[in-house]
């Protein structure tokens, strides 16, 4: 890991230690500075994911935060990715913030908040169109997939996100 990535991740970890994570987000494991796993649940009564918990895995490269981390929902015996029109059954996520809308001012917790709000705004549990076909041919690293973010949902998430982050980062 390069100096910038290491320092930055240490700071984020210290921040989580000092201030904690937002409600519904728990750091499950951060044994090293390469891979962190967060548990995410959606709060409130109105959500369709009530009582469900999902595990979000982030892999940080040595150019973090310039480069976006590799983010997927875990799909194993213990955790299943949420049923969501932007989440494939292998855990890959189609969200602009994990692609061309990534900004180095964001951080790991910000990604969790985005995912949480993406789930919270969903009304119908379904898999993305062409899920089976994508999952069959998908590379293991979702960053190698060329995503199309033509959905207005991802846009509104991003707009919201900057408002959330302004509060969060302060």
């Amino acid at each position, binding site marked *: 890991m*390069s100096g910038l990535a290491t*320092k930055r991740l240490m700071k984020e970890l210290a921040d989580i*230690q000092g201030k904690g994570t937002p409600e519904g987000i728990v750091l499950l494991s951060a044994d090293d*500075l390469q891979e962190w796993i967060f548990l995410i649940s959606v709060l409130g009564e109105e959500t369709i994911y009530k009582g469900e918990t999902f595990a979000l895995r982030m892999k940080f*490269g*040595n150019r973090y935060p*310039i480069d976006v981390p590799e983010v997927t929902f875990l799909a194993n015996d213990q955790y299943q990715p949420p049923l969501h029109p932007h989440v494939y059954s292998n855990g890959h996520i189609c969200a602009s913030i994990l692609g*061309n809308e990534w900004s180095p001012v964001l951080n790991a917790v910000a990604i969790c908040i985005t995912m949480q709000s993406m789930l919270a705004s969903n009304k119908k549990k379904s898999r993305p169109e062409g899920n089976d076909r994508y999952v*069959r041919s998908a590379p293991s690293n979702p960053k190698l997939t060329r995503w199309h973010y033509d959905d207005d949902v991802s846009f509104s998430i991003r707009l919201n996100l900057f408002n959330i982050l302004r509060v969060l980062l302060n």
Partner: protein
Amino acid sequence: MDMSSHPLLASMDEPPPFPSNYPQLRRLDRSVYCQICKEPFQGPVSIACGHSFCSSCIRSSLDVLKKCPSCNEPASEGSIRRNRALEEITDAWEESRPIIYGFAQPPIAKKRPAPDSGSKPTSSSNTKKLKTSSREASGSRSQSPTKFRISNEEQDVDQTEDLQDEGNDDLDDVQELTENDEAPCPICQATLPISSIPMHIEKGCPPPKTRTNGIRKGNQKADWKKVFSGQTSSGKTKEVELKRITKPNYMIATPADLRAILAEYSLPTTGDKEILIKRVQEWIILFNSNLDTSHPSSLSALRARLSDVEASKRRDKEKGKDDMVAQLGNRDGLQKYAKDKKSEFERLKREIMERDKRRKDEEEGKGGRENAIEVE
């Protein structure tokens, strides 16, 4: 997980945040942080939208995406401008932080002033501590400490050669030490003008530029000549021109072009085009951002940083590979790998069987053409 005793954080040397009952100080503290690296600005620059970042941070970011990381406005490297006021603010805040941190402690903790307390093992606070002691040390040599201290306070104003004073020429009156007098640095013992010692320590004791004494008046003419002819004393001694490097067009640049750039700055020219591009890119960020700060590193320090970056990238690349090879090298590891990947194997097996079956059906039916488009 239990965050109270995270092993990774044990080795961290971070200045502690201000207590939560001082939100104003926390805000002030944050305001001198670059939003990309979350560290105090190093060579801050602003871009067209008005947001500021460390020069190297924003240069790296703009290499990837031509937008402001904070507000998403389109941005380009051409709009980068040095933000000298912000640099001064950052430096001043860094200098005052330990003192103000000490003030912000609850009364009981106040007995131990923060700058000297062991709870702040940061390198920056260490230099600050040394700096304080250096002031005290050199101050005790002076017979007029008040005067000395005042002149020391003015050290932020750039020292210029023509700051003459009477006491300097009069060698009999050595008691009156003024800022233009020289004294040994308390750390490295190099002889320097007193006024420049704090800055010298701040920079980690670089060897002083050799300058002969008592030639100032005589050389003034020559100095002015230099100014008018456009050459500076530093420009002459430096091996390369300290001018921003223009980015080559990586699409059309040949490996020879890239090697020429690298050779100009005495950098390694080995590797294929991809490696050369990475090295040139990294160097341009390091070199150009080094021109945006009042505390520039030496070229050799930049070269060392470049080789560090390359080494860490290589380690990262090989780390996963080594682990995998080590795991598959022994029996337990092999079994564990097989167990971990079992569901994946099963899935592939099932898919291949299904596919074969489909193909067979197609051949038999000869009508199922529309199913032929299949992603493999």
